[in-house]
Structure formats: C-alpha cells, structure tokens
C-alpha cells in the first residue's frame, strides 16, 4: 500500500499562488516575480503529480481515496473534502498540470507588459486549482466545486479585457450558459442522492455510487433521468449541442486562456465526468445513445461552421467544439478509454494550435502596433506566407495540424481512429455514427489546412507598412510550442491499437476504471465486424487526404475558387458564416423572452396589481375616513338628531 496522502498538495500550490498574486500582485509589480510565483506553483503541482502518478503506475492497487475533512454534515447528508486518485484522475492531473505549466510559461511572454499581469496569473492559478479539484474530487460535490470554480475562472479570464463590451458579454454568456448545465448537474445529483437513499444508501461519493448503482434498475427511468441531467451539465461545460454557443465567444479572452481552458482542460470536464460515472451511464443505454448522437451531431455541426470562419481563433474554437463532439461520441458508444485518450491527445495538439495562433496574433499585433495600424490581428485574410517569418511557430503548428487531421503516425490519428472504430463496431454503436464521424473528419482536415494555407502559405497579405515587422516570437513562447508539438507527434504512441501491432498501454492502464463496466454491460467491439477495421482506417485516412487536397486546391492552387463557390451556394455560405443563426435564435427564444417576462412581472403585475391593491386599500380607508368626517360636524343638534333616528330604528327593529 503506497502513500498518497500528499495528494492535497496538487491543488494546494496553485491556490496559494493565486492568493499571493491576487492580494499582493499589485504591490509586487515586478512581472518576473509574479510570473515565477504563478508558474512555479503549477510546476510544483506537476512535480507532485508526476510523483504520485508514477507511484500509481507501479502500484497493484489502482484506486485510492484520501479524506481530508468533513465538509457538510446534517443527518443523512454527509459530505467530505476528499480526493480520489485512480488511473483516470491520474491521467487528468498529468494533462492539467503538464499542459498548465507550459501555458503558464508561455503566458509570461504573451502577457508581457499587460496592465493586469498579476490579475491574469492569479486567475490562471485559480483555474488550475479548480480544475484539479474537479478531477481529484472523490465525490460529486467536490467535483462540483471545481466544476463551478473553473466556470468562475473562465468568466474572469474571458472578461479579462473587461473594458471591451464584447468581452464582458462573452464572459457573462459563458457563465450563464454553464449555469444552465449546472442546473442539470444539480438535479441529476439530487435525483441520484434521493434514489439511492430510498435503498438506504445516502452518498454522493463516486466509489460508493459505483458500488451501489446496481440497486437501481438498469435501463430504468431513474438512471436515465439522472444520467441525462448529468449529461446536460456536460453539454454546458464541454460546449455541446445545445449549449455550445458560449465557447466561440469565449475567444475574447487572451489566447493562452483559450489554449488552457477552452481547449485543453476545462471543456473536457464533461467528458471526464461521464468517464468518472461510467458505471451509471452504462446502465442507461438510452442516455448513452443520446450522448453518442449529440456528440456526433456536434462534431459535424461545429466542423461545418469552422469551414467558413476568417478569425483564426474562431476556427480553432469551432474545431474544439467539434473535437469534443468526438469525445462524447466515444463515451456514448462505450469507448470510454478511447474518449479519454482523445481528450489527452487533443489537449496536446489543440493547446499547441491555440498557442501557435497566439504566437501569430502576438506577432501580428506587434507589427500593427509598430506601424500604428488598427487592423484585426486575428483575421486570416490579413496573414499569409508567415511560414518563413515564423518558422518554429509554423513547424509546430503544422505538426499539430497533421495530428488533428488524422495523418497516420501522429497522436490524433490513433485516438480519432479508435473512436471511429468503436463508433462502428461497438455493441452500442452503429454505422451511421461512424459515417457522421467520418464526414466530420474530412471537414476537419479541410478547415485546418485551409487555416494553415491562409496563415502560413502563399503571399503575405498584411498591410505593407506592417509587413516587415512580423517576427518570430521569443523563446518563452516557442519553447512550449516545441514541447507540445513533440507531444502532438508522439503522444499517441502509448495507445497504438493491437491491430496496428501496438500494445495499447493507455487502454490497459485505464482498465481498472472502465473494464468492469464494459464487461458487465457487454460493451465491446463486435468480433464479427473486425474484418472492417483496416478498410475503415483506410477510408478515414483517405477522407483526410481528400480534405487536405481540397483545401490546397482552393487556397493555394486556385485562390479564386472559394469566391466562385460562395457565389454558387450563397445561402449556404451565409448560413454557415453566421453560425446557422443559432445565437439569434437563442436570443429571441430565451434571452429576450426572459427579459420581457421580467419586465411584465414588474410593470404588469408588481406595480399595478399588487401595489394597486395595497394602495387601493389605503385609499379606501382614507375615503371611508373622509366619509366619517362628514358626519362629525361638531354640531350638537346634528348628533342629537342622529341619536333619535338611531333610537327609533333600534326600537323599531326590536319591536318588529
């Protein structure tokens, strides 16, 4: 039995870093000190994570819980501050602290000279803390602390340039849309707590939930509702249909933030959550189907929008939404470890892509700044030919693009192909799911190479005055690019499937988490279909190459082609370019309707009706008093007269 009691240090370091920079950063001022504190904090976490991770690798027992203290205690509700380390959370902490450290390092260069330098690093550390709580929590509520904590940091970092209205709007949108998901998470948790409680098990602890889940009828209404509610939470955090709309707007944040939060880590939280509760989800085949369908639909839908965007970060944003769709597709067909595998490889290549785009934006921004121009440094139409000016950025970006496009040998190929294979062959899969994923893969290759060609190839379209001021970024920026580029290249080799002569160490490592569920519910790739494995692989390589070829044709060979195509399919282009008008639809359906309802409640009910009655009662009393005053004339004979009349009436009534 190994000792894992130091696990609390992993989230602790970034928390301390965040507090120090948050409280004292303004006084410290020195960027080097601030940056060192923040980067050091997450690097220390990484060191501890490595320690524990390798300890876990060599340990025969793979699931460890460490309880720190009681958190909430009221009768049946007993919740602890506790951590859970198993292969799943082990992989996650490595990704979060590893990629996190690189992005912290990168930020030192990228954010240089920013007024809110300390604020930025304080938020970034706080994010890492929250994300680590999310993945390490041993119960659903500690996870929820991280879950909402990353939402908060996302809010703070998207709104980092809070003077820009669009940044403030995007931040608020991200938080509110996530709250819709959180509503689902909470209802799911309540239902689960109550349903298990009916069987005498009052718990929110993951291991206990897994242990007692069999008390609930498999495939029954309860597990289906619970998992659907949790999945609603996942669609919020991981930007899936119908709650994906916040992610593209989130690109208002600084680019390293997009890399860390909106690509590599936070947005994968939903995938992780399903992985964490795999036993429960497997019990609800209906939910699994919904997950798979939503994942596949999001993958192709977001990819379609990515085809026509001109903002370099927006393309990557839609690409992220689309790739997350793949991960959900994997989870939905029961390919849990494939989903987590893609989560990891995606973290490498997408972080590299975002940081690469940041490097480009950084260079463009400085060039424009130098030339006193106000052109958009993120618009790819102003780029082109940058590969010679920024060779390291280009090379790492290109490698990552090959990875995401699914070129054999690179990390993305293995993970994506495994997902597609499972989508086709799993007992919970189907050829339609495969087909959608297959088509999306072609689109991915196309829009990514469109991006590469527009940015790095061809003629430089930058304004003449700024053209020569575009330079390669400094070493703190290129170093993380190189490391991530390498990971994008080789990161997939730990999961080479057996069909290709590999040993799939990754799946093997995660087996303690998923194998039991898969065996219990008979989730596996069907043997009868194994003959298709190589043809399908070939097909997906083929479609990627076609996508690349088309991009080359349209953006290198014949740059006039896109215009002709747009002219030919005008309506389609307008719809895609405007993101299928989903934002407008939501605004009309939800945002404005809610505002109108609020205004109606206030001006149409609160003031006229309730206060009307209250004030009316007041007027009535006053009017009544006024009437009484009329009788109080102060003249004796008047009173006497009234008394006489009254007496007569009383007597009359008495007699009659």
């Amino acid at each position: 039995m190994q000792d894992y009691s130091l696990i609390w240090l992993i989230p602790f370091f970034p928390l301390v870093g965040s507090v120090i920079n948050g409280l004292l950063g303004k006084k410290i001022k020195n960027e080097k000190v601030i940056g060192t504190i923040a980067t050091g904090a997450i690097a220390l976490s990484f060191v501890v994570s490595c320690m524990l991770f390798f300890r876990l690798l060599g340990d025969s027992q793979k699931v460890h819980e460490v309880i720190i203290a009681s958190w909430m205690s009221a009768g049946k509700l007993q919740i602890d501050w506790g951590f859970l380390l198993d292969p799943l959370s082990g992989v996650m902490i490595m990704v979060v602290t590893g990629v996190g450290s690189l992005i912290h390092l990168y930020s030192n260069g990228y954010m240089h000279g920013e007024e809110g330098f300390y604020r930025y690093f304080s938020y970034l550390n706080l994010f890492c803390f929250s994300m680590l709580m999310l993945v390490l929590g041993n119960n659903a509520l500690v996870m929820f602390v991280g879950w909402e904590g990353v939402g908060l940091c996302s809010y703070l970092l998207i709104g980092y340039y809070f003077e820009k209205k669009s940044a403030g709007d995007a931040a608020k949108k991200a938080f509110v849309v996530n709250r819709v998901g959180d509503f689902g998470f909470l209802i799911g948790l309540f239902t689960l707590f109550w349903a298990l409680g009916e069987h005498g098990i009052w718990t929110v602890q993951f291991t206990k939930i897994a242990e007692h889940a069999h008390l609930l009828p498999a495939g029954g209404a309860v597990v289906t509702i619970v998992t659907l509610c949790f999945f609603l939470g996942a669609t919020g955090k991981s930007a899936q249909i119908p709650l994906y709309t916040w992610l593209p707007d989130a690109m208002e944040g600084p680019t390293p933030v997009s890399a860390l939060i909106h690509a590599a880590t936070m947005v994968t939280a939903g995938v992780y959550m399903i992985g964490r509760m795999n036993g429960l989800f497997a019990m609800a085949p209906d939910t699994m189907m919904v997950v798979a369908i939503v994942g596949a639909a999001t993958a192709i839908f977001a990819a379609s929008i990515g085809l026509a965007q001109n903002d370099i970060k927006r393309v990557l944003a839609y690409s992220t939404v689309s790739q997350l769709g793949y991960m959900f597709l994997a989870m939905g067909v029961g390919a849990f470890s494939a989903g987590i595998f893609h989560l990891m490889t995606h973290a490498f290549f997408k972080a590299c892509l975002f940081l690469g785009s940041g490097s480009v934006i950084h260079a463009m921004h400085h060039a424009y700044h130098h030339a006193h121009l106000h052109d958009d440094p993120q618009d790819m139409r102003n780029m082109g030919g940058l590969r010679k000016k920024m060779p390291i950025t280009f090379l790492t970006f290109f490698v990552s693009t090959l990875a995401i496009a699914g070129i054999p040998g690179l990390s993305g190929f293995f993970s994506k192909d495994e997902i597609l294979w499972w989508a086709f062959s799993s007992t919970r899969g189907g050829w339609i799911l495969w087909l959608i994923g297959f088509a999306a893969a072609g689109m991915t290759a196309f829009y990514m190479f469109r991006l590469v060609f527009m940015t790095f190839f061809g003629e430089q379209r930058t304004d003449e005055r700024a053209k020569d001021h575009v330079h390669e970024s400094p070493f703190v920026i290129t170093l993380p690019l190189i490391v991530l580029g390498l990971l994008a290249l080789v990161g997939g080799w730990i999961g080479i499937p057996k069909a290709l002569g590999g040993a799939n160490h990754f799946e093997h490592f995660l087996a303690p988490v998923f194998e039991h569920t898969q065996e219990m519910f008979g989730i596996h790739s069907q043997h009868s279909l194994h003959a298709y494995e190589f043809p399908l692989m070939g097909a997906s390589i083929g479609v990627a190459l076609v996508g690349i070829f088309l991009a080359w044709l349209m953006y290198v060979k014949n740059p006039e082609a896109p215009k002709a195509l747009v002219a030919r399919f005008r309506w389609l282009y307008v719809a895609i370019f405007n993101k299928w008008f989903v934002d407008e639809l939501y605004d009309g359906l939800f945002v404005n309707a809610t505002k109108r309802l609020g205004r109606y409640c206030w001006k149409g009910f609160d003031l006229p009706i309730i206060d009307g009655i209250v004030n009316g009662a007041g007027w009535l009393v006053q009017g009544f008093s006024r009437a009484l005053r009329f009788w109080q004339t102060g003249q004796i004979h008047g009173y006497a007269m009234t008394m006489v009349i009254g007496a007569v009436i009383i007597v009359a009534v008495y007699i009659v």
Partner: protein
Amino acid sequence: MSEHLLSLMTFFPLLGMIVVLLIPRENDGLLKGLTLVFTLINFCISLPLAFDPVFKTSGGMHYGEFAQWISIGDYFQMNYNVGIDGISLWLVLLTTFIMPITVLSTWQAVEKNVKGFMALLLLLETAMLGAFISLDLFLFYVFWELMLIPMYFLIGIWGGAKRIYSAIKFFIYTAVGSLLMLVAIIFVYYFALKSGVPFDKGFSITHFYQLNIPAEYQLWLFLAFAFSFAIKVPMFPVHTWLPDAHTDAPTAGSVILAAILLKMGTYGYVRFAMPLFPDALQQCLPVLAFLAVVGIIYGALVAMVQEDVKRLVAYSSVSHLGFVMLGIFALNLQGMAGGMLQMINHGISTGALFLIVGFIYERRHTRLIAEFGGIAKQMPVFATIFMIVTFSSIGLPGTNGFIGEFMIMIGAFESELRWFTVFAATGVIFAAVYMLWMFQRVMFGELKNPANKELKDLNLREVVLMLPLLLFVFWIGVYPNTFLEKMNPALEQLISQIKGKQQVAAVEVVQPAQPEVD
C-alpha cells in the same frame, strides 16, 4: 454572570441608547464612536455563546431566564421568559455581529441628527435580540412590535426621496399582519388555559408546543401567524413593501432590514407557526411551498429588469428568502439546516451588497445602473470585494451561498416537495443572470460617464468593515460544520416535534372511524 447573559446582551444596547441620549447632539463623532463601542462590546458579550459546546449535544433551550412580568388578576399573565437553542443562537450572533458593521457604515453617510439615528439603532438592536430570545409569545410580540418603531423612523427621517410613502407602507403592511397574529396569540393563550396549562406559565411556547389544538382551529390560527410572518419574510405576493423600504432606507437601515429583520419572519415560522400548528402546516404546505418557489423565480425575474441597483438587490432578497422558506418547508434536517444556514448567508451576503450599494451611493448620489459602467478600473479594491460578494450571492461553491442553497434543494428534493425543487433550481440560473448582468453594467465596459472618473476607491474604514463579512463568506463556504453542528440537535428536536404531532393527529383522525367496542 452566565445565567443572565441573555438579558445582559439584550439590554446592554438599551443602556447604550440612554447614554447616547444624554450626550449633547452636536458631538457627532463621539456619538458614533460610542455607539460603535457599545455594539462592539455587545458582540463580545454574546461571543461566548458561539463557543459553548452544549449546543452540539442538546437541542433544548439554554441560558434560560424567567421572571413574572405582568399579571392582570388571574386571567392574564405574561412572563419574561427567555432562552436560546441552536436555532436562535446563530441569529442572535448574526445580530450582534452585523450591528457594529452597520454603525461603522454610517460614518460618512449619516450627518443629519446623528444622535437620534444612533439611539434608534441601539433601540432596534435590543428589540431584535429580544425577539430572538423570547420564549413567551406575548413577550415576543412586544419585541416584534418594538422593532417596527425604530425602523419606521430610520426610513421616514433619514430615508431617500419617497421615504414617507415607503415608511408608512412598511409600517402598515407589517402592522396589519401582526394584529392578526395578536388575535391568534390571545386565542392560543385561552385555549391553553382551558387545556390545563398552569396560569403562571403565561404564554410559554414550550407549554404551547404540547397543546393538541383541534385541526379546524389550527388552520385559522396558523393562517394568522403565517400571514404575519409571510409579510416579514417577505413571501410572494406580500413582498411589495420591501423594494420600497429598501430603496428609501438609509444604508444602515437596509443592511439591518435585509440581514436581520427579514429573518424575523422566517424565524417566526420555525419557532412559532410551524411547531404550534403542525396539522395546519401539513395542510398548507403545498400552497406555501408554491408561493416560496414563485417567490424565487418571480423575485429573480423582476430583479433582472431593475434600473436601480438597490431595488435589484431588494428583489433578489425576495428570491433568496424563497429558498429559505423552501428549505424550512422540507421538514427534514438537510433542508431545514440549509434554510437556517441560508438565513445567515443572506444576512452576510445581502448585508454586504447593501453596504456596497451604499459605498457607490455615497460617492455618486445615484444608484441607477445606467449612470455607471467601467468602475472596475477606477476602483479595483471595490471591484474585487464586489465580485466576491456577487458570487457569494449567486451561490458559487466555496462561498456560503452555495452551501445553503444546496442543502435546501437536496433536502426539499427528498421531501414531498420534489417538483417544487426542480423549479426552484432554475433560480440558480436566474441568479447568475441578474447579478452578472448588473455587475457587468456597473463595473465593466468603458468608463464613459465623466462623473465616474473622479471616483475614489474604498478607504480603510470601508475595507475594514467588509472584511469580517468576507471572512464568513468563505468560512461558511468551506467549513459550514462550525454552524451546522450546533443547529442540528435543535432542528432534530423541532422536526421530531412537528412530525410527531402530525402523526398523533393522523391517528386521532383515524380513531373515530373505528367502531367503538364497549
């Protein structure tokens, strides 16, 4: 000393009021300073209660004091009968805790007739503490009514533009409710006498709890109590005095109103209306829970479209107090503990929000959201504190608001109120909408309004008075057990009391249907 601790704590502010009244009115600084000292000392007096381990183990009344007070012949007897349990403990401490902060907030805000203001604040403290510790229904009623008077003057004299209208509205709304309650109190008293409760026990609620009031009486009595308390909470649809009262009250008044006076209503349900009339409660539960949930959503929707920050916070109170009520009506430990905790949380967070609104009002003499924008750049410290409080109000995990809301909802969900909870949970979304939208419009964006370019960040006094509140935002968020462990025994006792009597009543109803065997 400890046997008179509660009396000392309750009447010490009254002593302070007398001292304040003796000081010539032009010594503004001295008056404020003295009031601060008195409230601080009073906080220290009450502090030992927080550390008394007895509340962890015993749910009964402690620190009891008893004295005969008013006797009229042998048909009317009221006693000075006080004591606290784990339920009132934290409300008492919240009161003594909030008061010094409130006084500190008046430093620059109150300039007109400081003497009167301070005297009223101290009188109000005595009245509030008295109401929380009363175990005699009539004594409670006296303190309950006594609270009205200082608050009425605080709004009516030191208030904003429509202060007279708001003060009268506040007064009449509350007074109408309490008159009904008075009738019900007297009815219960005579019923108790008839049922054999000894005459010298007066209006002792511990004895009233034992009564078996017939269901048909219970309903009307409960309605009288419930109506009176519902106005105070305030529950939808008798909430409309609150936005007006808040908007026109001076900052100190708003803070006390939100932090403590509203809790008087929720506390009234827990201490009086529910345990005294459990059958009627059972009967009315669906309606009350419905109103609580409507309050949550309605309050949030109306808060969303407000143009005045203070009015927005006031409507948010309607929403938050709806959560508290829902938790209380869950009638299980999680829900009720959540409700009790949320009372404290609301006191801290909304109290802090009103202080925050006060800060910018003192600087700009307006509270219209449209007048602001981009303040964050000008006032970074203020922005940080405002943001923390905002997220506490939204109920972000790690802050106090989350614990309360979560426990309320998980408790209500496993009670009969399951479906109500689902709707209540949408309040979680709306809270984020109205708070963040407001925050964005006030703090973010470009600093366009020239009047805001001169704004000064918070001074030391203002930061100091916010820090204790922030401390508890995180304390309750991270380790609520400090508070829960002391309220749990009292709540368990209360719940078994209510449920026990409901079962007795159920059995009684069944009995007549059985054929009598003689």
